[in-house]
């Protein structure tokens, strides 16, 4: 997985639904964020497992923004959800510390916080079909993740 600055091109594709969440970097909002994203995702007929996978991935990305992005400070976290016919896209953005070395951070067990296990990004990779991180130290981090969905069955 390469950390490239562009998302997969979606030129000309219009999402079926689009929702943005913006909230303060409080631990209790991690649960809010994953449940809200799952609410949007469940407008499509997904399996319990798919929903669980999405929830865990969102939980990791938002937790990272709270724990690493804003560390001892506090700030706003933005979550953009786009529901395409065949894909769910979730982008988690913070304006926090940023990541010095993205490739290093992506390796399992690598962490800058000894109380943690360095597993969050690996979990996202495991549960989603696409993960692209862009970050600038001192400016913030953007975690793009996408999950393939079966096309909606039109009734």
């Amino acid at each position: 997985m390469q950390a490239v600055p562009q998302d997969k091109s979606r030129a000309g594709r219009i999402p079926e639904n689009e929702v943005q969440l913006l909230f303060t970097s409080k631990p209790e909002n991690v649960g809010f964020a994953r449940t809200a994203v799952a609410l949007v995702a469940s407008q499509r007929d997904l399996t319990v497992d798919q929903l669980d996978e999405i929830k865990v991935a969102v939980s990791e990305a938002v937790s990272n923004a709270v724990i690493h992005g804003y560390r001892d400070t506090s700030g706003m976290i933005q979550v953009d959800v786009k529901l395409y016919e065949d894909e769910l896209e979730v982008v988690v953005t913070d304006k926090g510390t940023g990541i010095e070395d993205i490739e290093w951070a992506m390796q399992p067990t690598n962490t800058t916080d000894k109380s943690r296990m360095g597993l969050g990004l690996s979990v996202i990779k495991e549960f989603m079909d696409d993960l692209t991180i862009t970050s600038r130290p001192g400016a913030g981090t953007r975690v793009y993740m996408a999950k393939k969905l079966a096309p909606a069955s039109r009734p």
Partner: protein
Amino acid sequence: MIRRRKEDERVHVAAELVGNTLVIRLQGELDMHTVEEFKHEAERYLMDKRVKNLVLVLSKTSLIDSSGVGAILGRYRTIKERGGTMIAVGLRPVVKRILKLSGVLNVVETAESERRALARL
């Protein structure tokens, strides 16, 4: 007035001592927020020095993320220090996958049911 249980955001920890085995039943979602409650409650029960083994019943645990995994491994370390065994019971598919991915299932056994877990100890 009916007060609703805030199950979505809170975990609920119930425990029972069966011989020298502590059975913890965990309900809810285990993340960086709710993990504090889990750690606190689990440590409270683990203060009882009779406890050697731990059976963690996860059939009502709907989500565990990597913060939750960390907390489970923390409890495993306590049990290991006492020379005991830890068994996890009732894992949902996605919970099982994250426990596998993180290596927890290399050191923590799994069982189909609480009864089978207890029989093994």
